[in-house]
C-alpha cells in the first residue's frame, strides 16, 4: 500500500459536497442542527465505497486513495480560485494566497494535465466535475459560515483595522471559517463501549426523556431534543456508510479469483458488518471502528489535526485479550498497526493553499500520544505502544506522528525504543514534558473543575497542543478496565492565529505602516521611541490593539459557525456532550477554555528587540533612524524572492552601504546562547504575552491562553516581513517553532540553548516548541542513543515543554533539494509534524537546511 501511495496524487471529489448540499437544499426551514444532520447522513450514505487490494483496514474520505473535498458550507471563496469573490477574499483573510509557495513534488497536483485540472493550488479534479463543483460551491454564496461571518464581523468597532491586519499578514487566518475544528484529541469511547446501535438506542431513549422538558436551563434544556435527534440521524448515516463498504467487500470477494485476497475481502466484510452495529470484540474490530469514527469526525468539518490520543492505551484491553487467547501475535499486530499508519497517511485536507500549504505544508497532524501516567500516577506505557513505535520504524509514514508524554517514571527500555525510532530520521516521536503539560491544564481548566487525576489523562492534539482529556471505565467481554477516554475539550488551537510578531515590531518602528505594501495597518502611535522602555511599551500597545480587534471578529466567526454548521459527530463523542445533550458549540464539552493567541517569529522578535536595545539604546552604536533606513534598504541585499532562496545564508548583496549596520545587527547578542542580555528580553516578552492574552475572552466567555508553535507559518510570514533588526533579510523565513534558535545563531551547544529556552515558565503557555537538528554521527550506536536520551532528559528536567529532532545530514537535504526524484520517501521533521521532503514548500526546505546542525552533543 505504501508503494501505491507514493504513486498516488491528491485528488478532489465532489461526491460528499454534492450529496450534502442536495439534502440541505431540500430541508429549507428545518431546525439548523437537524438540517445539518440530515445533510451529513445523506452524504455518508451515498459515498462510493472503494476497497484496495491488500488492505486489512478499510474506508476512506472519498472514493480515491488520497482523496478530499471542499466544504463550501464553511468557506467557499477560495475553491474556484477565480472571480470577484476570490479577489475580495485576498484583500482580507486570504491575503497569503499570493505569498505561499506550493511544493510541486510528491502527490501535489499544481497544474492541469489532460482531463485533470488543479484546484486550490494542489488538488487534482476531473475536468468533467468542475461544472458541478461550481454549481455546488456558488449555491452556498451568502449562506456559508464565511459569508455570514463577514456580514456580522463588520459590526465590530474598527473592523477596517481587522481587514488591514489580515491584508498585511500581521495575522494569518480566520479560524472560524477556515479550520473551525481540530488540533484536538478525538474520543472513540462511546462507539468502542456501546457500538453504533447502542449509541442510537441511547439517543432515542434520551429523546423520549427530554422532549418538551426544559431541564434546569431555559435555553439549552430544550435544545437537547434536537441534539439527540441529530446525533441519531448521523449515526444512522454512518451505519449505512459502513454497511456499504461491507457490501462492496462481499461483491469483490464474489468475483475474486485469488483465494487469499478473497478471504481478505470476506474478513473485511465480516468485520464491517459486526462493527456497523455492535461493540467490537477483538483488536482488529476495535481498530476498524476507531477508524470509522475518525473519518466521520473529519467529514463534518474542515478539520486539521484530529489526534487519536493515547490510542495504544485505549485499545490495550482488546489487544491484551487477543494476545492471551492466541488470536493475535506480535507479527499480526504489527501488520495491523502498519495498515492503520497507511490509513492515517491517506488523509488529505482540502482548503485554501494559504492554509494547507502556507500554514500546514500539507500535514494533517494525527498525533498518537504514548506514555504519560495512569489515573493513579503510575507509568502508563505498555507493550502495545512499543509495537506502535516499532510500526513507525517498519512503516515510515508521516501519519500518525507520535509523541512521548515524558515522565521520569517511564521505563528505560521504553524510552530507548523511542530514541531508536528518532534515530531512523523520521522525526517522530516528539517529546513532551508530561508534568509541564499537566501544570498548564490545571492552571487553565482548574476553574472548570479539573483535578490532578483528570490532568493525568492529558494527550496531545494536533502537532503539539496540550489537550484536556478524561478517563472512562470500559467493559469488554466481561472484564472492566480504566482507559483514557480521549479529548474532553473542543479545538485547542482556535482564536487569534497566527500573529506575525516581527511584523508588529515593523509597525512599531514605522508608526503603523506596512513597509512592504505602504499601507496603514494600525493608527499612528505617535511615539518617538526615544528609549527602549518607550519602544517596548509601544510594542505592547500595538500587540493589545491587534489581539483586541481580532478576537472580537473571531468570536463572531465561531458564533456563526456553531449556529450554521454545528458539530454533531465530534460533539456526540466528546465528554460530556452526549450525556448533557449539548453540542460542543454550546459548551457541551467538559472543558471550554479552549481559545488562544498563537504566535510566530517570537525568536526574531526577541533577537530584534535585543539588537535595538544593544545597538541603539544601550551602546548607541547606531541611531534608530539609521537602522530604519538600513531595514528599508534590506541592508543592501536583494530580496529573497529575487534570489529564489529563503535562507539567510544564500542571500545576495547588492551594495556595501549598509555593511556596518548589518554587521552590528548580526553581532548583537542572540537568544540561544545562555546569555542573560537576550534571555532577559525573552523572559520579559513571555511574561507579558502569557498574561496579557488572559485579559481577552473567547465566545465562551473564557480567558484566552498563549500558544507557541509555528507549524509552517514562518515561511509565508517571513515572506511578507522586510529586514528585521536582528539582521534577518527581507523575505527570508523566520525562526521555526517558538524556542528554537534562529539558524546559525546558537553557538554554544544544545545545553546552552536549553538554558536560554527555559528562562521562563513553560507551563504558562499551552505549548512551546523546540526543534533540534543533529548529525547522525553524533548519536551512533547504543552509546549515542543514551546520549540522546540524556539530552532529552536534561531539557525536560529544566522545565522545557517540547523537543523534537531532525537526525539528518544537511548535505543529504541539499542533494534532495537538487534531485527530488531520488527522495520520494524522505521524511523530515518541520515544526510539530513530519512530512515528505518533496511535498514541502521551498522556503521551509531552505529553513530546515539552514538550521544549526549539531555534530556533537556537549
Amino acid at each position, binding site marked *: 500500500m505504501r508503494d501505491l501511495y507514493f504513486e498516488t496524487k491528491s485528488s478532489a471529489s465532489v461526491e460528499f459536497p454534492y450529496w450534502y448540499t442536495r439534502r440541505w437544499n431540500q430541508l429549507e426551514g428545518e431546525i439548523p442542527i437537524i438540517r445539518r444532520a440530515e445533510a451529513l447522513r445523506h452524504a455518508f450514505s*451515498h459515498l462510493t465505497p*472503494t476497497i484496495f487490494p491488500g488492505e486489512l483496514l478499510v474506508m476512506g474520505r472519498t*472514493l480515491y486513495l488520497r482523496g478530499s473535498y471542499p466544504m463550501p458550507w464553511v468557506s467557499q471563496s477560495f475553491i474556484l480560485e477565480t472571480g470577484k469573490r476570490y479577489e475580495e477574499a485576498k484583500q482580507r483573510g486570504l491575503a497569503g494566497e499570493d505569498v505561499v509557495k506550493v511544493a510541486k513534488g510528491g502527490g501535489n*497536483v499544481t497544474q492541469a494535465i489532460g482531463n*485533470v485540472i488543479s484546484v486550490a493550488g494542489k488538488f*487534482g479534479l476531473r475536468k468533467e466535475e468542475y*461544472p*458541478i463543483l461550481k454549481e455546488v460551491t456558488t449555491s452556498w454564496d451568502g449562506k456559508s459560515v464565511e459569508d455570514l461571518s463577514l456580514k456580522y464581523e463588520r459590526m465590530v468597532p474598527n473592523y477596517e483595522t481587522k481587514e488591514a491586519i489580515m491584508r498585511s499578514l500581521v495575522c494569518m487566518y480566520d479560524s472560524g471559517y477556515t479550520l473551525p475544528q481540530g488540533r484536538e484529541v478525538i474520543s472513540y469511547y462511546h462507539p468502542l463501549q456501546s457500538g453504533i446501535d447502542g449509541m442510537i438506542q441511547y439517543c432515542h431513549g434520551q429523546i423520549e426523556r427530554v422532549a418538551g422538558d426544559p431541564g434546569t436551563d431555559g435555553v439549552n434544556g430544550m435544545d437537547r431534543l434536537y441534539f439527540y435527534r441529530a446525533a441519531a440521524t448521523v449515526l444512522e448515516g454512518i451505519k449505512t456508510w459502513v454497511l456499504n463498504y461491507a457490501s462492496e467487500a462481499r461483491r469483490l470477494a464474489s*468475483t475474486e479469483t485469488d483465494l487469499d485476497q478473497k478471504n481478505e475481502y470476506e474478513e473485511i466484510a465480516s468485520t464491517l458488518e459486526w462493527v456497523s452495529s455492535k461493540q467490537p470484540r477483538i483488536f482488529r474490530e476495535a481498530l476498524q471502528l476507531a477508524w470509522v469514527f475518525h473519518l466521520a469526525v473529519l467529514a463534518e468539518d474542515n478539520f486539521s489535526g484530529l489526534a487519536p490520543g493515547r490510542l495504544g492505551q485505549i485499545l490495550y484491553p482488546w489487544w491484551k485479550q487477543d494476545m492471551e487467547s492466541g488470536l493475535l501475535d506480535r507479527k499480526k499486530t504489527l501488520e495491523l498497526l502498519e495498515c492503520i499508519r497507511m490509513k492515517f497517511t491517506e488523509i488529505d485536507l482540502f482548503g485554501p493553499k494559504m492554509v494547507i500549504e502556507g500554514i500546514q505544508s500539507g500535514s494533517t497532524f494525527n498525533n498518537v500520544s504514548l506514555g504519560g501516567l495512569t489515573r493513579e500516577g503510575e507509568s502508563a506505557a505498555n507493550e502495545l505502544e512499543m509495537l506502535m513505535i516499532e510500526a513507525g520504524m517498519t512503516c515510515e509514514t508521516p501519519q500518525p506522528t507520535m509523541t512521548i508524554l515524558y515522565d521520569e517514571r517511564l521505563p528505560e527500555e521504553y524510552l530507548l525504543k523511542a530514541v531508536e525510532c528518532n534515530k531512523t530520521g523520521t522525526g517522530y516521536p516528539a517529546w513532551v514534558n508530561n508534568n509541564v503539560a499537566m501544570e498548564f491544564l490545571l492552571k487553565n481548566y482548574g476553574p472548570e473543575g479539573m483535578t490532578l487525576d483528570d490532568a493525568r489523562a492529558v494527550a496531545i492534539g494536533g502537532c503539539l497542543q496540550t489537550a484536556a482529556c478524561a478517563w472512562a471505565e470500559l467493559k469488554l467481554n466481561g472484564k472492566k478496565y480504566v482507559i483514557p477516554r480521549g479529548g474532553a475539550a473542543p479545538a485547542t488551537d482556535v482564536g487569534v492565529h497566527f500573529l506575525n510578531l516581527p511584523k508588529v515590531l515593523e509597525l512599531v518602528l514605522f508608526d503603523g505602516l506596512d513597509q512592504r505594501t505602504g499601507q496603514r495597518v494600525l493608527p499612528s502611535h505617535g511615539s518617538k521611541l526615544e528609549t527602549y522602555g518607550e519602544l517596548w511599551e509601544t510594542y505592547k500597545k500595538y500587540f493589545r490593539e491587534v489581539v483586541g480587534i481580532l478576537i472580537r471578529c473571531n468570536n463572531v466567526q465561531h458564533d456563526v459557525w456553531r449556529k450554521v454548521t454545528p458539530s454533531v459527530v465530534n460533539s456526540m463523542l466528546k465528554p460530556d456532550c452526549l450525556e448533557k445533550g449539548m453540542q460542543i458549540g454550546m459548551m457541551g464539552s467538559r472543558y471550554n477554555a479552549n481559545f488562544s493567541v498563537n504566535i510566530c517569529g517570537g525568536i526574531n522578535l526577541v533577537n530584534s528587540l535585543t539588537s535595538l536595545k544593544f545597538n541603539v539604546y544601550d551602546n548607541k552604536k547606531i541611531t534608530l533612524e539609521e537602522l530604519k533606513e538600513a531595514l528599508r534598504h534590506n541592508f543592501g541585499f536583494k530580496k529573497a524572492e529575487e534570489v529564489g532562496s529563503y535562507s539567510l545564508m544564500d542571500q545576495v548583496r547588492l551594495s556595501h552601504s549598509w555593511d556596518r549596520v548589518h554587521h552590528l545587527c548580526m553581532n548583537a547578542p542572540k537568544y540561544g546562547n545562555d546569555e542573560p542580555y537576550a534571555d532577559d528580553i525573552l523572559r520579559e516578552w513571555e511574561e507579558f504575552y502569557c498574561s496579557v492574552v488572559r485579559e481577552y475572552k473567547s465566545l465562551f466567555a473564557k480567558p484566552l491562553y498563549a500558544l507557541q508553535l509555528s507549524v509552517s507559518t514562518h515561511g509565508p510570514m517571513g515572506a511578507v516581513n522586510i529586514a528585521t533588526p536582528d539582521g534577518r533579510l527581507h523575505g527570508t523565513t523566520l525562526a521555526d517553532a517558538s524556542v528554537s534558535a534562529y539558524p546559525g545563531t546558537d553557538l554554544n551547544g544544545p545545553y546552552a540553548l536549553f538554558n536560554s529556552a527555559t528562562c521562563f515558565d513553560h507551563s504558562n503557555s499551552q505549548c512551546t516548541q523546540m526543534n533540534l537538528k543533529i548529525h547522525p554521527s553524533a548519536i551512533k550506536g547504543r552509546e549515542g542513543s543514551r546520549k540522546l536520551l540524556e539530552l532529552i532528559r536534561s531539557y525536560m528536567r529544566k522545565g522545557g515543554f517540547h523537543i523534537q529532532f531532525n537526525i539528518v545530514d544537511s548535505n543529504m537535504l541539499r542533494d534532495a533539494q537538487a534531485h527530488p526524484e531520488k527522495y520520494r520517501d524522505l521524511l523530515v521533521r518541520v515544526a510539530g509534524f513530519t512530512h515528505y521532503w518533496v511535498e514541502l514548500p521551498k522556503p521551509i526546505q531552505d529553513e530546515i537546511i539552514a538550521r544549526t546542525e549539531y555534530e556533537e552533543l556537549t
Partner: protein
Amino acid sequence: MLAQVIVRRCADCEHFIPVDVFKGLCQVSKKTVLTDDPPCKDCTPAKKCKFCKHYSPRDEHLGMCKAKEITYPELATKTCEMFGWSSDLPTGRN
C-alpha cells in the same frame, strides 16, 4: 460488446477501482489502468447517473435527476437507492 458501446473509458467500468483522478486498478487484470483508457472486452458498466433512467442531460457535464435535482453524469450511484438502468442503453442491464 454491448457494454463497450456505452462504456467509453475504464472509469465507466464496474471493475475499475479509482486510485486518484488519473488512474485506477482493474479488478480483473490486477493492473493499473488510466481513467481515460478505452474499455476492454471484460468491462461491465458501472452504476453512474448517466446510465440511470432518472437522468436527463442539461449539458455535457450537468444533468437533472427526476427532473428536479441537479446532478452530473459521472456521479457514481452504487449507493443510490433510486438508481435504475436506463432503457435507452443498448444493453440488457435495464
